[in-house]
């Protein structure tokens, strides 16, 4: 057990899975000698050699498409797309092949690959480096979309993603990479894909978040208790798709009120599905309209203004209060 950043925690998961299983190979731009632009793969080329940590030419479709072939062969490739904003270059390889080969071959072939990509704002980056568009993948049948909320969940989910028999898109909130350290056990720890978790209990209101939004949600919950005496339950989704709605339905059936939070643009975003599931499954328990606190239907502005775009504690608290008083 030691305290580590999310970068270190993902590195640990990769390192341990590589040590345990020689089917696990990494590929991506600058992941070898450079250790990845965020250093997530730091030291792995030294530990496992360039045959297992491939510095690729600059071509995302090739990275994903080659991984499809490796995975069909029986390996467990973990691709890094340097920023999720460049993952659209391989959209067709994921939609048309990774997501479909098990189905297309009637179960005979499978594509146990992981596509890692940093997403989201918060690191004063250039254009295309701060978007949050996980909904694209979440809407794609045949893909699983996983987004950890910190070092410990990142490590435990990465292990599951690598071992999963099917393709997993693994979005890493780059704003969390070095934001804080958390205890991460040395021994194996797994969170199954498809399971969300309650990270704070409460009976007055439910907040649903994932990735980098879990922390502001928790802070907002704290503030609501301190200033309004409101007890907020906070649920961290962890897996976005396929969306397991058991916990969120249970919670909202009790609280009757919910706030859904994400960085992604609002319209047709992940929040819409979450709201709809609550509307479908907890309709008669809703005391107030469910609030969405999200990015706007804009391209995230360059960094001098990105803090106005990304949901923050203030906006979450405001939305919660509105929900509570409706």
């Amino acid at each position: 057990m030691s305290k580590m950043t999310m970068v270190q925690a993902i590195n640990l998961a990769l390192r341990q899975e590589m040590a345990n299983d020689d089917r696990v190979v990494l590929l991506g731009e600058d992941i070898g000698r450079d250790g990845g632009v965020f250093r997530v793969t730091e030291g792995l080329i030294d530990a496992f050699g360039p045959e297992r940590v491939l510095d690729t030419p600059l071509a995302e479709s090739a990275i994903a498409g080659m991984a499809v072939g490796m995975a069909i062969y029986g390996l467990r490739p973990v691709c890094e797309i340097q920023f999720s904003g460049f993952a659209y270059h391989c959209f067709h390889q994921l939609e048309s092949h990774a997501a479909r080969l098990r189905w297309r071959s009637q179960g005979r072939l499978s594509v146990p690959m992981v596509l890692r990509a940093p997403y989201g704002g918060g690191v004063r980056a250039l254009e295309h480096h701060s978007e949050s568009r996980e909904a694209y993948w979440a809407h794609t049948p045949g893909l699983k979309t996983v987004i950890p909320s910190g070092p410990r969940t990142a490590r435990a989910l990465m292990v599951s993603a690598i071992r999963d028999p099917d393709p997993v898109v693994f979005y890493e909130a780059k704003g969390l990479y070095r934001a804080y350290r958390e205890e991460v056990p040395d021994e194996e720890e797994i969170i199954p894909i498809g399971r969300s978790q309650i990270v704070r209990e409460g009976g007055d209101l439910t907040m649903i978040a994932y990735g980098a939004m879990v922390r502001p949600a928790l802070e907002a919950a704290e503030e609501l208790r301190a200033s309004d005496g409101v007890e907020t339950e906070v649920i961290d989704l962890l897996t976005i798709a396929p969306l397991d709605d058991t916990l969120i339905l249970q919670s909202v059936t009790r609280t009757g009120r919910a706030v859904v939070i994400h960085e992604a643009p609002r319209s047709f975003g992940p929040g819409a599905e979450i709201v709809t599931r609550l509307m479908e499954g907890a309709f008669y328990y809703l005391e107030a309209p469910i609030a969405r606190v999200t990015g706007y239907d804009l391209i995230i502005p360059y960094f001098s203004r990105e803090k106005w775009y990304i949901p923050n504690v203030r906006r979450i608290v405001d939305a919660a209060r509105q929900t509570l008083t409706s």
Partner: protein
Amino acid sequence: MPRSDIAVTDSLESLSILDEHGNLDRDLEPQLSKARLLELYRAMLLGRRFDERLLDLQRQGRIGTFPPIKGQEAAQMGAVFNLRPSDWFVPAFRETAAEIWRGRSLESIILYFNGFNEGGLVPEGRKDLPIAIPVGSQVLHAVGLGWAARYRQTDEIVMTFFGDGATSAGDFHEGLNFAAVYQTPVVFVCQNNQWAISVPVSRQTHTPTLAQKAHAYGMPGIRVDGNDVLAVYAAAAEAAERARSGGGPTLIECVTYRVMMHTTADDPKRYRSEEEVAQWQQRDPLPRFAAYLQQKGTATEPQLAEMETGVMEEIQAAVDAAEKRMGELGDPLAMFDHL
């Protein structure tokens, strides 16, 4: 320098062995046993006759849209005939003869083209990928398989097929580049059948050959008469040997022709002349190869006729089996399988 020509050292060649007039270059003639030659011919014949039967079925409304392969039997069979069962085969969607040779059942093809997902079942133990429809996309899978085969220190190689149109796709480029950088054991077989639906190869690219695109990757390129099964076989044998022995990938351009429509939903009269088609029909790879076999004494005409009968029976049995099977495949809930 200061101003000089750059010489590209990777080989770029053209090859023909048995021309359309029956002339044979004995120095280049591949040495195939009688049994192998007959196997090869039968596979081409089966591909041809099955294709014709699919067209009938389609015209009768008994299957849906499909892409005929007629005229391309030599290009695909000459190449794939070099593969061992332990090698990998990565088709596009117009390699029916090659797919059958590799072990795909005729029945599954009928199911597939009649809209049953069950037709996609890849039989256990086969190292083949299913049809890939997004043009060019499968090239990358071949590179990944080839890389993995080397990683596992096997002597497996990978052969992937694509059309002339596919050479315009980004995935073709990224795939050949990766294959060369990693020196993966992949044979890239382009069936240049002159057309990508209605676009002739002369509007697909400004280059006189597709083989020369190999220069962009630092790999050998070779352009062969794709209706000359001996030339295709020889070129692919060389490329396969290169790949197997660690010499890296090769790009083979098979110059052939799509005699029929793009798919049964297409009407080629809209965009190409009947003369062009007639001209290419002169170069039909089947009679050319049959004449060679007879000249060589590998088979007599009656023997070939007997083979024909066997092929027709095999096809009929498959059609019957497929239609029986499809009658039993009503369950809508099967759509929830395998996802």
